[in-house]
């Protein structure tokens, strides 16, 4: 990068530098943004876009700084004046921008602007004041000295030096949210030595071929159909999205009122209308909502097929549960649901049952998958549509609440007290921990007396 800068400054081949006018003072040895871009295009034969990008990088790394808008290190391809940073301040010198230096710089600024610093600079100033309090007198003294010496220079020089310093500190102490060009990123060790390498031997290719064959056999849909489905999904969920369609009674983040969360908590006596509607979208929505699931269980009980849901829940517990409990859970499922004469025997076709019983001999996490899927599909195709048409569901819809919208206050800046809520982790006691950590999917499977 530096070779480029040096050649830029070459008196003959480099960028033509003229005395630029900045407001009323004349700055020597400055050039316009346009000049920089043009020179790069000519010298390297690159496009304008690339030259602009390159120029921007040079400015961001602090080799050229703008005179007109010194806060933002951006290259503008117009008449705005720029200047080369003195080699003293070049990033490659790598002398550490010490806290002391930064403190002196901020102190100078503070004195000059009489306390009117940008927010992050104010924060840094206070932080430094706390940290290096013992040398603070020195800092202030240095700052005053430098300011005094600066006053004795010509205005043009003063502006130049200020801009130089400002650019230097913008690179070394970037404001929050700005790109830090000096950032190296995490010390990621040489990835090659620790990468899990796949030797491209025969087995690897055999696996690849197997995978490709399976992939070919998969049923696929056209993009048009798939995208159509995507759009339908968005349309269906739009009125339920709090950001797109607002939330009643009010958005807790805006009004500090947590009623919305309270009304939509996992277990409430009366669910909201939107929530009950969502249960009708698809089976998964119904099952993932604890309230919906409980209602579904009630409806299944009326049809004497509640064991299906219990079986499905037990299988979920198996799939996502602890490794050490797998044999125990598999056995419990067998005893309750699959053994001939079991109290809550589930109706699975003989093929699946045969496979599952075989699999139970060597129990593992996914041994119930086939059976679980069969029962899931049964519920989805059979019980679920009946549930949606049932009186139970219709009543739920009718009784569901639509919370009234909170009237907008006349004085919106009267903030409500923000109360903390109990953390879910507070219920972490010995027994509860087990239950809680199984997650919202599985409820404990109680043994029923026949």
């Amino acid at each position, binding site marked *: 990068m530096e070779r480029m800068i040096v050649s830029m400054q070459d008196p003959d081949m480099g960028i033509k530098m003229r005395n630029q006018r900045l407001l009323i003072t004349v700055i020597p040895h400055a050039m316009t943004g346009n000049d920089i871009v043009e020179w790069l295009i000519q010298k390297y034969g690159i496009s304008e876009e690339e030259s602009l990008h390159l120029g921007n990088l040079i400015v961001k790394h602090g080799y050229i700084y703008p005179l007109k808008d010194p806060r933002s290190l951006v290259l503008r391809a117009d008449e705005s004046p720029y200047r080369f940073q003195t080699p003293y301040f070049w990033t490659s010198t790598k002398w550490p921008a010490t806290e002391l230096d930064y403190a002196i710089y901020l102190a100078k600024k503070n004195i000059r602007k009489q306390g009117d610093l940008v927010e992050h600079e104010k924060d840094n100033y206070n932080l430094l004041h706390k940290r290096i309090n013992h040398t603070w007198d020195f800092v202030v003294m240095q700052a005053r000295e430098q300011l005094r010496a600066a006053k004795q220079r010509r205005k043009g020089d003063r502006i130049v030096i200020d801009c130089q310093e400002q650019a230097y500190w913008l690179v070394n102490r970037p404001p929050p949210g700005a790109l830090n060009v000096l950032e190296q990123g*995490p*010390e*990621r*060790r040489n*990835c090659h030595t*620790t*990468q*899990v390498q*796949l030797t491209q031997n*025969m087995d690897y*290719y*055999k696996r*690849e*071929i197997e995978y*490709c*064959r399976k*992939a*070919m056999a998969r049923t*696929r849909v*056209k*993009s*048009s159909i798939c*995208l159509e489905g*995507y*759009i339908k999904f*968005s349309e269906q969920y739009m009125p339920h999205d709090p950001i*797109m369609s607002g939330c009643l009674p009010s958005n*807790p*983040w*805006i009004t500090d009122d*947590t009623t919305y*969360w309270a009304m939509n908590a996992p277990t409430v006596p009366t669910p909201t209308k939107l929530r009950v509607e969502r249960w009708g979208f698809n*089976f*998964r929505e119904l099952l993932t909502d604890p309230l919906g699931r409980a209602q579904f269980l009630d409806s299944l009980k009326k049809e004497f097929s509640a064991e299906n849901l219990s079986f499905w829940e037990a299988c*979920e517990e198996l*799939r*996502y549960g*602890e*490794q*050490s409990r797998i044999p125990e859970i598999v056995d419990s499922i067998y005893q309750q649901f699959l053994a001939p004469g079991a109290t809550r025997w589930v109706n699975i076709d003989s093929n699946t049952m045969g496979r599952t019983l075989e699999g139970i001999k060597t129990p593992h*996490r996914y041994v119930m998958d086939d059976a679980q*899927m069969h029962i*899931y599909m049964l519920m989805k195709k059979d019980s679920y549509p009946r549930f949606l048409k049932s009186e139970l569901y219709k009543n739920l819809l009718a009784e569901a609440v639509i919370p009234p919208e909170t009237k907008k206050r006349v004085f919106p800046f009267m903030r409500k007290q*923000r*109360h*903390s*809520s109990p*953390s*879910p*982790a*507070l*219920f*972490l006691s010995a027994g509860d921990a087990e239950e*809680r*950590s*199984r*997650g*919202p*999917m*599985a409820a404990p499977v109680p043994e029923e007396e026949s």
Partner: protein
Amino acid sequence: MATEGLRENETLASLKNEAESLKGKLEEERAKLHDVELHQVAERVEALGQFVMKTRRTLKGHGNKVLCMDWCKDKRRIVSSSQDGKVIVWDSFTTNKEHAVTMPCTWVMACAYAPSGCAIACGGLDNKCSVYPLTFDKNENMAAKKKSVAMHTNYLSACSFTNSDMQILTASGDGTCALWDVESGQLLQSFHGHGADVLCLDLAPSETGNTFVSGVSRSFLS
């Protein structure tokens, strides 16, 4: 003896060719079904109105770049991890800090909240994913109950609990993803074949709960 070696070489080459040709056919099949682009279909959809995004809360407390965060299921709590090695649990509604852990490494690039809200998982340059049960007991140091779950050979870039507190899916710079049992720290399944650093992953909310997506970065020195 020499002929055997030759035969093996031939089959290796022929296998490779077969794999390549199958891949080509697969691409063709896929291309056949690609009859319309998303932006074409999207043209029919109403455009969104002006979006006003305001900062509602600012949570101050990390000393350096915040690298990752995750929401709790209660919709107000957040866990966040940063470059300085600190992992903090906040009630973002009140902006109070509820828990804080200092990891033994810097650059904690991944953190996740357990579905029950009772634990958090985090990891980074230590190549591990650790699970911390959240406790309000003043006498207990959270680091004391820490469980080291995942072990990779390179940095941890992402982690996520599956449907329960007992399973974690992790992605790592060593090019693999893995599924672990939290209680025992056992590796349940590992997913190879990325060829480069895996930087992120996400679980699909499907009916079978069987799929997840992982994103990989191509390193320059390949």
